[in-house]
């Protein structure tokens, strides 16, 4: 097997999406030695899939916008279990982070007076999303990538982290393997930043790529960190439902922001049928007002299609269950109808939503300028993750930082569209800055040979079991089905208990997963290693969801369909306790009076 090759860094960043790259830039700017590990090639991370935009209260399109409105919108969207300090920092710092991207070469769409254009999105009171057509994520990742390559950051592409190494309670580095040769690499680091994204691959229908296996969540958990809010999974209301092979691929909320409407098979705009009380004052009373809102009329209120994602997803589920769905089990999303309102509507749609046009044309043989799309909910994002300090992004393990989707707090029970890309750059920067400060003055940690040896042995175990072991792809498939069926959009106690039983059996199968052949670029082996992380996050989601006996945001329980005031006072945390998962409640600290006042003001 041979000793792994070793490297030393002051700050090691795991993950090269928006948060990881932004952290790398900031750490490099602080003058420390930075290493960056990513599972894919540089620039391929899931951030490229983000479409709609990044939320920042720059007030270019509506001068009534400011950080306070953005803060209140984020808290309302998150049903007030957010980390209010993170929501505050995010709202205050996002505009500067966006402007900084422009200094690094990003080319956003422009307003008529030449500034960055901002679009409407669900749950945001004013047009707030800086965007580039519907490929904002690509613009973000490419801008950060193109800035990073000139900074002397060492990038280890197609490397996957197996385990975090912890020495005397402080993180000391990671063990990884490279996909190309299957060799092991040990990285000693004074501080580690996890920026590994989400957990979508724990579900069958997801907008996430193969990379979304909850690596950061599980690595941190095994290293002793706390995960919070894991019951809050966001099911994006509009994923493709047909053809089967593309089921789950995202259809941007931007379609609705540009005037797209949801209809059932009877042609009814069913979103008008159920508008939650706390959103009624801000929601259009008729389709005409909704249309005017999407066209920038400041006196109009938003159409109900732009209510929060959790609510829209459940309304779609309701229509489908009631037999009013589309032929392939979704509902209709119609943007073509705007030709009644606009001259040259087809050109307008192609210009505003180029990649959606392209995606449907090429994958579904459908012209969105002429026909409605069929859409249904898809697992999109996890609000929960590694518990971090709001200001520094340090986890409960010293020296271990987290940013982006794998960290928790800013989004509470439900994330607003557009708050993710801005989260990446706001907290990626903070994580990089504080990881660098933490690393300065610390000695290079020594790596425990025994721990490395144990981890490499465990990683090679699937080869010892050979092809006679469980097929890792089959285990993954069954795990995804379990989570989809039993811990999905609508949850209930008995089903979730059943899920725990099945997860136990799946864990045993995962531990028997076997592959044969060589270690070079062996996808089956990689899948076998991913299973461990997927099992951990699936269990964390299920146990947390059982603990929260109410419905809030992305977490909906059929057996407890209402929100309970008692549950607004704490977050649910899970932690490793000697091999079993412990569930605990963490009280939410009281919000300072000035922030409470902001929320009250914005309720009017």
């Amino acid at each position: 097997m041979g000793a792994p090759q070793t490297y030393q860094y002051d700050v090691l960043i795991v993950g090269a999406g928006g948060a990881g790259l932004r952290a790398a830039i900031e750490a490099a700017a602080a003058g420390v030695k930075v290493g960056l590990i990513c599972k894919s090639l540089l620039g391929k991370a899931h951030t490229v899939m983000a479409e709609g935009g990044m939320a920042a209260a720059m007030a270019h399109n509506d001068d009534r916008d400011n950080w306070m409105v953005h803060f209140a919108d984020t808290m309302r969207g998150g049903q007030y279990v957010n980390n209010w300090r993170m929501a505050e920092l995010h709202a205050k710092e996002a505009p500067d982070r966006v402007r900084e991207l422009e200094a690094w070469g990003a080319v956003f769409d422009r307003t008529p007076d030449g500034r960055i254009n901002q679009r409407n999105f669900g749950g945001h009171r004013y047009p707030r999303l800086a965007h580039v057509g519907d490929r904002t994520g690509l613009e973000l990742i490419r801008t950060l990538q193109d800035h990073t390559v000139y900074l002397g950051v060492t990038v280890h592409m197609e490397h996957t982290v197996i385990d975090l190494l912890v020495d005397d309670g402080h993180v000391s580095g990671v063990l990884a393997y490279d996909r190309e040769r299957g060799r092991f690499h040990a990285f000693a680091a004074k501080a580690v930043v996890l920026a590994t994204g989400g957990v979508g691959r724990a579900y069958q229908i997801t907008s996430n790529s193969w990379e979304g296996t909850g690596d950061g969540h599980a690595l941190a958990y095994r290293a002793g960190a706390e995960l919070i809010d894991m019951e809050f999974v966001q099911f994006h209301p509009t994923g493709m439902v047909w053809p089967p092979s593309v089921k789950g691929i995202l259809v941007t909320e931007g379609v609705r922001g540009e005037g797209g409407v949801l209809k059932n098979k009877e042609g009814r705009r069913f979103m008008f049928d159920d508008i939650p009380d706390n959103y009624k004052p801000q929601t259009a009373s008729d389709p005409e007002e909704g249309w005017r809102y999407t066209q920038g009329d400041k006196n109009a209120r938003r159409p109900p299609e732009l209510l929060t994602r959790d609510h829209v997803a459940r309304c779609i589920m309701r229509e489908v269950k009631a037999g009013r769905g589309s032929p392939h089990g979704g509902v209709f999303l119609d943007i073509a109808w705007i030709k009644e309102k606009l001259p040259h509507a087809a050109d307008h749609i192609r210009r505003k939503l180029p990649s959606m046009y392209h995606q449907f044309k090429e994958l579904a043989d459908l012209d969105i300028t002429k026909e409605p799309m069929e859409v249904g909910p898809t697992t999109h994002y996890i609000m929960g993750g590694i518990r971090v300090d709001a200001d520094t992004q340090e986890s409960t393990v010293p020296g271990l930082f987290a940013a982006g989707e794998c960290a928790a707090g800013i989004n509470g029970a439900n994330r607003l569209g557009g708050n993710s890309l801005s989260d990446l750059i706001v907290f990626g920067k903070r994580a990089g800055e504080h990881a660098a400060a933490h690393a300065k003055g610390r000695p290079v940690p020594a790596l425990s040979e025994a721990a490395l040896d144990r981890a490499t042995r465990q990683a090679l175990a699937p080869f010892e079991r050979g092809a006679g072991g469980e097929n890792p792809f089959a285990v993954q498939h069954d795990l995804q089905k379990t989570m989809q069926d039993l811990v999905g959009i609508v949850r209930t106690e008995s089903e979730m208990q059943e899920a725990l039983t099945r997860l136990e059996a799946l864990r045993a199968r995962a531990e028997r997963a076997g592959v044969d052949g060589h270690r070079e670029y062996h996808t089956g082996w990689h899948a076998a290693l991913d299973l461990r992380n997927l099992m951990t996050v699936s269990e964390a989601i299920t146990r947390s969801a059982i603990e929260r006996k109410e419905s809030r945001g992305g977490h909906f329980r059929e057996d407890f369909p209402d929100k309970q005031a008692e549950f607004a006072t704490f977050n649910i945390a899970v932690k490793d306790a000697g091999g079993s998962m412990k569930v605990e409640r963490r009280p939410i600290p009281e919000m300072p009076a000035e922030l409470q006042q902001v929320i009250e003001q914005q309720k009017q």
Partner: protein
Amino acid sequence: MAQATFRIWRGGGGKPAQFVDYKTEVSEGMVVLDAVHRVQAEQAPDLACRWNCKAGKCGSCSAEINGRPKLMCMTRLNSLDLTEPVTVEPMRAFPLIKDLVTDVSFNFRAKPGIRKFAPRPREADGTWRMAQRDVDRVQEFRKCIECFLCQDVCHVIRDHGKHEEGFIGPRYFVYSAALEMHPLDTGDRLRDLKDAHGLGYCNITKCCTTVCPEHIHITDNAIIPLKERVVDRFYDPVTRLLRVFSNKR
């Protein structure tokens, strides 16, 4: 359910490589990447291929399908003749790592050799004003998903190996053009393009444009304007003469 045969290139890592036929079930709406995944899950778990987004946005799953450079995730089976085996090969211009995975590291080395974005100062109000019509052409270039299919078909790379002598290829001409035509940029990359990056090697056969999955007009909108700028600067007799007298480069 219907069946189809996929003739997939297997091998690498020092071992001899060859086509291996896999018969697998196919259904409506499937793309080539789905078929490769099905083969991987059911018959060949060690089959190596890159992919991420499965929606034509990340540019990871580039391959040569029936000899044509394409993204596997955007190639629908109903666009292919399934009565014959469908060949799936790695990009041939790059060294093979294993199966459908190639060593594309040259591309990542090429980028830092291009002078980076250098914006002019902000305006007094802290913003940069740019008109949409002025950023349209840069936005076209910035659609690039770095799938490297244009590099794969460029004969200067594929047949002549000039990238080993500094030729950066169509992807990085597009990158250079995006910087050169950026309304805020003050950098100057023309001498590098002429002397170091091999812009002159391109003889405008437009193979890169033909295969671009983002439909970027690589040749017409990026490479030819760059060539024109180089010609204006370095080969126009009048400006050359002026330069002699003004004692500039």
